């Protein structure tokens, strides 16, 4: 598997994604410079976390205009895998690769471990997990409140585009377990084809038990299994 990680000015989880792939999975990763126009044959594109362009305007609003986003959009349109994590999720929403919007958290910036439940296991990102599986990993963001119209949310539910929800220790969504006020406890969504997924929590920070959780591994292993299939 060859993973391309897009480096926007202000990306700061780009190296964490690189380490997750190279150090933990022992697969290939390359950094893709935002000013370039070439995905260099990447099977999977990761839009990493961070504060692209400082996110002074609206998270992800400027990064979507980076030159390389044209190639990322084309890759997605052709069925290629694109994963947006945190700021990458925001960028993917701004670029209309994913539905919905990520607004300012109801409680301000939050950095803490959360538990998310896998809602679909037939996607490139979740194929090795099972529906209902609970994964613990960190969040660290100020703008992660997933928002869409009620009609749009119903449509997303019907189409199976909700990939992850915030849940409590018993695996149930609740207001207390929802760290940012996301509608319907949504932590991650996919596009209609399921090849583009965005999520606010950081699986790339949960790859090694030494750091408290290795629950993110199953997602990266899913990507690997899909690419090798």
């Amino acid at each position: 598997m060859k993973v391309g990680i897009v480096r926007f000015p202000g990306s700061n989880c780009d190296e964490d994604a690189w380490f997750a792939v190279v150090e933990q999975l022992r697969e290939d990763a390359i950094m893709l410079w935002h000013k370039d126009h070439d995905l260099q044959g990447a099977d999977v594109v990761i839009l990493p976390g961070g504060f692209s362009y400082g996110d002074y305007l609206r998270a992800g609003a400027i990064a979507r205009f980076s030159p390389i986003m044209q190639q990322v959009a084309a890759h997605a349109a052709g069925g290629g895998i694109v994963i947006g994590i945190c700021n990458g999720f925001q960028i993917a929403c701004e670029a209309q690769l994913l539905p919905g919007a990520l607004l300012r958290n109801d409680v301000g910036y939050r950095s803490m471990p959360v538990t998310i439940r896998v809602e679909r296991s037939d996607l490139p990102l979740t194929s090795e997990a099972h529906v209902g599986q609970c994964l613990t990993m960190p969040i660290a963001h100020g703008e992660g409140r997933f928002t869409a119209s009620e009609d749009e949310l119903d449509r997303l539910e019907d189409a199976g585009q909700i990939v992850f929800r915030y849940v409590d220790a018993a695996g149930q969504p609740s207001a207390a377990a929802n760290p940012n006020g996301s509608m319907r406890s949504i932590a991650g969504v996919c596009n209609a084809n399921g090849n583009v997924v965005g999520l606010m929590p950081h699986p790339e920070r949960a790859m090694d038990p030494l750091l408290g959780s290795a629950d993110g591994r199953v997602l990266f292993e899913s990507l690997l299994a899909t690419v090798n299939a």
Partner: protein
Amino acid sequence: MTVTPRVGDPIISPALIAEHGITPDEFERLVAMLGRQPTFTELGIISALWSEHCSYKHSRPVLRTLPTKAPWVLQGPGENAGVISIGDGLAVAFKIESHNHPSAVEPYQGAATGVGGILRDVFTMGARPIAMLNSLRFGSLESPRVRYLVAGVVRGIGDYGNCVGIPTVAGDIMFDESYEGNPLVNAMCVGILREEELIRAKAEGVGNPIMAVGARTGRDGIHGASFASEDLSHESDAKRPRVQVGDPFTEKLLLEATLELIASGHVVAIQDMGAAGLVSSSAEMAERGDVGVVIDTLKVPVREQGMTPYEILLSESQERMLVVATRGREEQVREILAKWDLHAEVIGEVIAEPVYRVVEGDHVVAEFPGTRLVTDCPSYTPEARESDAIIALRARDVHGIPERPEERDPAWTLEQLLSSPTIASKQWMYRQYDSTVRTNTVLGPGAADAAVLRIRGTTKGLAVKTDCNGRYVYLEPRVGGRIAVAEAARNVACTGARPRAITNCLNFGNPKKPDVFWQFKEAVGGMGEACEALETPVTGGNVSLYNESPTGTVYPTPTIGMVGVLDNIAHATGMAFRAAGHTIVLLGDLTDELGASEYLSRIHDVVAGAPPKCDLVSERALIDTLLDAIQTGAVRSAHDCSEGGLAVALAECCIADQRAMFGATVNLSVWEALPERAALFGEAQARVIISTTDVSAIREIAAKHGVRATVIGATMPPEAGLEVIGTKRGFTAAIARLADAYHGAIERAMARMPDIAPPAPATGVPA
């Protein structure tokens, strides 16, 4: 060359000199150095460089007494940051710095730019920052103004560090009315580098170009250094324009560009343009290299037209660096910066002539002989005398203070202490800080006595912590200074790391007051003794004087930033109990000490008595015991006893991990001769609570080092609560109540709600 005043420069009058914070004696010194009257530009330069903040004129002679050497110290004080070797060809650069006065008038930007400045100090050494810490002191959370400051400072720290992508992993926060009008905001940064990549801020090589790199220069922050060198007053709010504005996005670009620049080999020296901006960075680089420099202010990239040399030299616009490049490589330097959408312009040159010269095109506006601008600054040793009032406070018999009726149940007292903002969980703060980015954080905020980070590519880890109990220093500065170092070392050792070196941030009042200068001398003396005994030399830091406001002087607060090394990251040890059925062992002893405690302050509103004794031989033996014991794998958790004493430490071990809390049963009856409240809440030093599955191993190791090890109880399921048989009475407390008091107190205070639930019926059990 002839120096001539610029057209429009104000006349150098006694009033103008005074406005620049220069005394008549200092002005004479300046005239003697120049052999003529200074120009307005030169007066501005001197006002910045001879400010307390830049010149350390009141602190230098005392600072020279601190130990600064050890075989592992690669760079001691005097550089952008200190550097120690940690083996495997790797080194750690670290430094702490204050941003107190800016934060007092503009908490958000003040704190944010404090973070930005200390980050630059570390990456200009060639180190990649891997962790941020912050040490904060505020007045009482009862005050709306204080809550405003807390909220702004925490948001400022978070927004800056989060955006740059450096985890904020540890720190310490205390609340006391002495900080009401003058909060302390000290930020520390830790970075890692390969030893051969270490670069210093020493101008070298005649003919090499001097380049301004990063953001353009604006009119913000002019005279920030002098502002930091005077007491805060009601007029201070009017100086808000002297506070700089931070741009963490530019900082992130500058960080990446700088590390790329250093790796490229095109530069010989780099320094942050921090306090006193361009003038201070260029003068200090010239002084370190003992060379001359010339700077042309017309070549400095500016944000607005019409800026004078005075303004350009003294601006403290953020996210700028001064670089000495290798001659002929200017274009390569520009290319690297351009990749990150940043500028680099040649603004001057290293010259053979021994002179510090500023020109504006063809016109010389300032010129100082040799490096005397830096080396000839005045130095003072003012009168030092202890305050009689404090001597009396220290002598007060605190054991005679009668108990409050509620204290019949020590569980009540314990809940009061756990909900004291100084002791309570700082979760409200650290949930606003990204602590896991860069994927090195093994033990983050709230998990251990110090934060632990792994070092990629090795089996090693790094433990980092800040500490200082200003109340101890206030009541007995020498002992307080010792304890600040000893506690920081103990915290680092509790995680399994060998304490290696410190950086310090010395926050004191006005040094011209004899009682303040006495505190300063004594506290630094105590610190030095502890650094010597624990083999943790000082590698640098910062002095912040004039921390005074109309409400008074802050507690003397010499904050210690400690760095320790774990040889095996697998040994990283947290503070929380890990399972029921483990044996609880106290390393160290109980005493009847009660002076200067959080108990007296919180329960009786008394700040008096002598702080606990600090025996450095015992501290060293305790650290050696801990490290040996942790390496055998027998230690499941380790937590030191500090504010709130043994009872608070035990409760913290039970409730620290909110996802897995435990109870405990503890028996202190072997200390039946001691007063109950001193045993439970006294703050005797050199004590650590560990939980273990191998008591005999612990006993053997402790005996080898001459440390008392007493089995005091066992961990239990949470339903059992915390049950303590005391020296007289004892108590049982429900874990959920303790957890609520501890984890919820600051959130409730910030939301202006009652601190804790109403007191429960007494559950005191006679011993």
